[in-house]
């Protein structure tokens, strides 16, 4: 490499190159117990308390595969449109590390659970399909703690609570062409996995972790460049920053007349740089071989079908259905399918209201405002979807004006009661008694002879004046349509 070359290339130079990125994402599967033993998977327990002979790697202990972890991994793979292999194998990945108690990780190698999938992402406003090479099951290691103890200068401590936590590793094709695409892909992946309830994807708890394979090539070049693997991209911000750094670094190397070295690099969030961890010549030989303690994993067609039918509808499909069945606007359908809770809420409220577009407006408008103000999620909304639907059905039927409903909703939000209870208590019933309304209309007409004359003289706009007067007299409780009808009749 040329010694005078800058470490990072300029944006104008980078633009001549096309980055090629693939992501390896590790996601914790949200089972209650670990993948090979019955220890709980909870986060935050005192160190080395959620452990047993199996996840401690005690001599003689044996793994037994958690059925639920398999089921959730299959569902995750289905959501990523993967083909599920009817026969797959667990395999040992051998390496030494203090927080790896067995001296090997139980993973999958040449016969993974699933593969040949892909997801559609929205990037720069347009859709793009990103291929998923494979998705496989594995167990997590423990955690090495290098700091914070009085003797941390000499010792590393190990917490094995995480050891044996079920993971699914999702490997993408090298289909990503920028750090933003990588960001959008990871976002989409996270949304899907959260949506189907396989994982909370909480990056802070380490439940979603990401490594990237990055290379660059001159735009139009037929072949991929030499790639580097960048590790430790454990937040969305780091992912983008690390990829941008690595892309600029590789371009600078090439522009300086050098060659990119195939190696593993570690991202350091403090400096924002990637640094070489180990070169190709020091690459681990993991000596994979089939795990003899576990039988091959067979997914029968019946089991697969059972799991498929138990899956919630995926966001993309639901979005399409919302457009087609409910006539929602594209934007609204997108917002309402961002989370499973929100879209479930919408569907319930829309059904109860009998008017999906009205439900969409209220959920994204007034209700969203109330929730935001109270710092609550839709799942914790004090106004149930049924109650909101009830209120909206009153609007749709003309029993309550929108204006009145806007007063009722905050009270429902406060008390958790349904609309009828509040209207009854506060005397907010819409006047539907036509005799009473007729009397009020007659009063208003009698009290404003000048405007009556104007109206009769052809000034139709005066009607809204009368409407306002009637509403004032009824404190907004009159049905506007009924009032209009009556006014026209009497005038």
């Amino acid at each position, binding site marked *: 490499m040329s010694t005078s070359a800058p470490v990072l290339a300029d944006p104008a130079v980078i633009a001549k190159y096309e980055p090629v990125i693939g992501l390896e994402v590790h996601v914790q599967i949200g089972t209650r117990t670990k993948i090979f033993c019955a220890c709980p998977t909870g986060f935050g327990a005192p160190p080395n308390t959620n452990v047993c*002979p199996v996840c*401690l*790697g*005690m*001599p*003689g*202990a*044996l*793994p*037994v*595969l958690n059925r639920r972890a398999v089921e959730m991994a299959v569902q995750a793979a289905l959501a990523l449109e993967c083909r599920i292999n009817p026969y797959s194998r667990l395999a*040992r990945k*051998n390496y*030494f590390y*203090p927080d790896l*108690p*067995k*001296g*090997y990780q139980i993973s999958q190698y040449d016969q993974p659970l699933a593969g040949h999938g892909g997801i559609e992402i929205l990037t720069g406003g347009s859709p793009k399909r990103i291929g998923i090479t494979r998705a496989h099951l594995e167990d997590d290691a423990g955690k090495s703690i290098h700091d914070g103890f009085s003797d941390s200068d000499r010792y*590393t401590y*190990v917490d094995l609570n995480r050891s044996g936590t079920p993971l699914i590793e999702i490997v993408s094709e090298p289909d990503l062409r920028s750090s933003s695409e990588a960001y959008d892909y990871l976002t989409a992946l996270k949304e899907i996995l959260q949506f189907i309830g396989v994982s909370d994807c909480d990056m802070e708890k380490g439940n979603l972790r990401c490594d990237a394979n990055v290379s660059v090539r001159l735009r139009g070049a037929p072949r991929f460049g030499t790639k580097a693997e960048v590790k430790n991209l454990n937040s969305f911000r780091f992912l983008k920053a690390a990829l941008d750094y690595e892309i600029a670094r590789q371009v600078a190397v090439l522009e300086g007349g050098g060659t990119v070295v195939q190696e593993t690099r570690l991202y350091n969030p403090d400096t924002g740089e990637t640094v070489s961890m180990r070169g190709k010549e020091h690459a681990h*030989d993991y*000596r*994979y*071989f089939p795990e*003899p*303690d*576990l*039988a091959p994993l067979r997914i029968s067609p019946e089991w697969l079908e059972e799991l498929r039918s138990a899956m919630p509808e995926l966001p993309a499909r639901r979005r399409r259905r919302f457009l087609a069945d409910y006539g929602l606007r594209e934007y609204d359908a997108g917002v309402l399918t961002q989370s499973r809770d929100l879209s479930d809420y919408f569907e319930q409220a829309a059904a109860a209201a009998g008017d999906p577009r009205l439900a969409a407006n209220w959920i994204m408008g007034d209700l969203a405002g109330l929730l935001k103000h109270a710092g609550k999620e839709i799942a914790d909304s004090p106004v149930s979807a049924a109650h909101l639907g009830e209120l909206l059905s009153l609007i749709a039927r003309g029993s309550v004006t929108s204006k009145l409903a806007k007063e009722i909703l905050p009270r429902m939000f406060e008390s958790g009661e349904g609309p009828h209870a509040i209207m009854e208590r506060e005397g907010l019933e819409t006047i539907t008694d036509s005799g009473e309304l007729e009397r009020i209309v007659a009063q208003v007409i009698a009290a404003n002879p000048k405007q009556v004359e104007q109206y009769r003289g052809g000034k139709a706009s005066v009607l809204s004046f009368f409407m306002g007067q009637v509403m004032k007299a009824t404190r907004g409780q009159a049905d506007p349509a009924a009032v209009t009808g009556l006014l026209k009749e009497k005038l």
Partner: protein
Amino acid sequence: MSLESLTVARIRAQLLSRERSAVELAREALQAAEQGNQATNAFITISPERALEAAQRVDQRIARGEDPGPLAGVPVAVKDVIVTKGVRTTCGSRILKDYIPPYDATAVERLEAAGGVIIGKTNCDEFAMGSSNENSAYGPVRNPKALDRVPGGSSGGSAASVAQGTSVVSLGSDTGGSVRLPASFCGCVGITPTYGRVSRYGLVAFASSLDHIGPFGRNVRDAAALLQAIAGRDPRDATSAAAPVEDYAAAMNGDVRGLRVGLPREYMKGLPAETGALIYRAVDELTRLGCSIHEINLPHTEYAIACYYIIATAEASSNLARYDGVRYTTRAKDSGTLASMYRNTREEGFGAECKRRILLGTYVLSHGYYDAFYLKAQRARALIARDYAEAFREVDLIAGPVSPTPAFQLGEKTADPLEMYLADIYTVTGDLAGVPCMSVPCGETAEGLPVGLQIIAPHFQEGRMLRLAEAYERAVRR
């Protein structure tokens, strides 16, 4: 009264008639083990506390008028590769010299639930790697039948203890012949059940796809009683079989007339004359019992040793990775870095044979060699298993030698690992195929050294195998 004359059935009768208590018997056994150990070094750890507690439970059950269990009060020795909660389990290795397991192996739980009394942990080759019991960090075991000779390995201590009369039955483990070879060398009965018949949970792994726990006894019925107690599905071992467990005592009451017994040509040709003569004499006895003898072929036998030493070492290199100095392993002192802690711990902790097999196994799994070695060995293994499947279409059982020679001298083969490996030539195929097999004594050489007859059965046909072994044993003792 010596333990040597006791059987499982006789102990039960004595306890039930209150002729003696389980605690008295346990004390005698513990004392015998202490004394006997001076001659044979069969035990690494003797466990009086655990033994007396178990014996007390048996006595209490009898006092309450409850059934004390099929192994009531029976002194049992357990190979030191099978974990015992609170009782040191070394695997014959320096690297685990202070390891106290926090849990019991399933087989241990089950044999104690049946009333068995564990008196101690027996010596063995380090991590069950060896054919002579000379690879123990705790010294070799001496053959009680000839103290200058090896007891066979790797379960040498378990076989020696039973043969010597310091226990009545014992547990060993068999990966390539480690139960049958010492049974043959020490003149007792040793059973390697079908793979999956007895849970491996708590058996410290050497080669997971080949490891079996198996019982020893001085007679077939005693060994079968121990097998009965420990056999059966265990949810903690994913490779344990759900197939129902036969009533072995009942199976042994059946008739052996008409059983078709195969004699593998590959085993008999080239067999040293003295061993050959004893095996043929045993086969004649089987004929007298009404069995028909058929020559059969197991054509892939010649690949068995190579195949075995690839698969077993590959798995071992992975299974032994956990002994790294981080947790329970005895950690080498004064290691400045993580890498040097690993290196020093394993350099100091493992013996030569373990290191040799870890290196071999690491090599055969390495990138670029996997297909040529490991995968090819797996294909050979499938062919060996097919040999058995095809043979068992023609015959009900197979009989043959356990080993080409009787017990050899201590130190005789330690210089030549390959010659040592060949002691397992007739036993590894059974492990590779996962079929049940056993050794039953069939006489002695001119020097008075015991020789075992091997009987091999189709998967889960332990009952048939035991029936023939028991009928043969009864016939030759008459």
